[in-house]
């Protein structure tokens, strides 16, 4: 299956003067809404950068985590910028640009269950929350075989579950943990295990070589001039590593 190489999305984008970028507003701080209920987050800012660099208008297409690949394959969006971690399964069906950020997958817990976990076996039969269909899910499924994985549809629901106390352990990013802790002052989560450090990149359909080259150029330039790092730092509280892993 998959797609063929006839389409030239870059030409399409330029012709219509508009790029449709899929973002996930349910995954703070990469994608979320501000106090005025406007889309915000590092991915949204980065998306603006990309649209600007291409000299086209930006149209945000909202997707949820599990819908990111389908959104591409079915043409709902031209590209996906939604803390889209690069992994082998995804690469079978879609293409990634170079990385423009990194995201860790960690297990974090409060003072309850999993408080003393240092290795995956310590989490056997412990309830661990994650986001259905995300790389976190895949990673946790693979590395925490004994844990009781509880999968929510998006990060927002995961955060709500952690804040409300439905689960006390999560397998997700440190950024999610920060978001949780802002609302969970009494029993903040701390990182127990780092499962993986993943680069994330812009997702696009296979065979879009022109578009990919163009996007890679945009990323390279904005890494060099520090704009991407500034955005990343502003939202996640830490600067980007000097060199990003290859995708």
């Amino acid at each position: 299956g998959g797609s063929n190489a006839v389409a030239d999305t870059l030409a399409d984008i330029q012709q219509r003067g508009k790029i449709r970028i899929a973002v996930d507003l349910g995954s703070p701080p990469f994608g979320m809404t501000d106090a005025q209920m406007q889309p915000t987050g590092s991915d949204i800012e980065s998306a603006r950068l990309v649209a600007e660099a291409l000299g086209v208008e930006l149209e945000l297409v909202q997707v949820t985590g599990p819908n990111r690949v389908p959104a591409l394959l079915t043409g709902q969006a031209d590209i996906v910028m939604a803390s889209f971690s690069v992994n082998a399964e995804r690469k079978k069906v879609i293409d990634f640009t170079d990385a423009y950020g990194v995201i860790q997958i960690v297990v974090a817990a409060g003072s309850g269950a999993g408080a003393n976990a240092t290795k995956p076996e310590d989490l056997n039969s412990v309830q661990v929350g994650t986001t259905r269909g995300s790389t976190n899910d895949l990673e946790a499924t693979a590395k925490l075989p004994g844990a009781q994985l509880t999968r929510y549809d998006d990060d927002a629901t995961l955060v709500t579950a952690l804040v409300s106390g439905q689960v006390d352990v999560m397998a997700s990013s440190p950024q999610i943990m920060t978001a949780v802790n802002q609302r969970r002052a009494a029993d903040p989560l701390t990182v127990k295990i780092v499962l993986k450090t993943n680069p994330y990149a812009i997702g696009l359909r296979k065979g879009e070589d022109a578009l990919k080259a163009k996007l890679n150029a945009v990323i390279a330039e904005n890494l060099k001039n520090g704009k991407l790092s500034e955005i990343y730092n502003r939202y996640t509280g830490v600067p980007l590593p000097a060199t990003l892993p290859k995708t």
Partner: protein
Amino acid sequence: MTYTFDFSALLPYWPDFLWGAVLTLQLSAVATVAGFIVGTLCAIGRADGSPVVKAIVAAYVEVIRNTPLLVQVFIIYFGIATLGIRVSANLAAMIALTVNVGAYTCEIVRAGLQSIHRSQVEAAECLGLSKPQIYWHVIIRPAIERVYPSLTSQYVLLMLASSITSQISAEELTAVANRIQSGTFRAFETYIVVGIIYLVLSFVMRGAFSAFAHAAFTRRRKLGTTL
């Protein structure tokens, strides 16, 4: 169209589909039985209770019938946790579905109760039956028999609506579908398969309900009246 269909990618996942379907059926079965009991009690309360009971039941029914199940599911799942009680997603889903279908059952059963003529109750009173006996032997059984088709439809709808509980991590059929499609990236194919499974489940459920009716409503069977 730049899309090629590929159902074969789903083949390895058949046990997941199966377990999803099983959990969907479990959720529906529990909610059906519990919702039936809740709804019937509420219907009796609304027909025969004190003004306070009547008002409470009316409020319950109206609130549930006029707000979306999705929102009810969220309120129950997170609301219960906010109160400091931790329940599993499956249990929360069962509670939410029960609360939801209980309100609908109440309305349906109430219509059934109203269709029982007063003279039937009088006759039973004159035979010296106590109130609970009258309710059980003379009112509820024939009332349920009368509204059985509506109840059947309602419970099949409930089974379909249980897909919403995937949102709070209940691993039923739709949740399984979401997971599988994000592993295989065959969203369209996955949902087609799941859609078909739901169709089959609803036929199975209708079949089960009519089998139950066949066994329970002896008069219908004997006189050959259809439900």
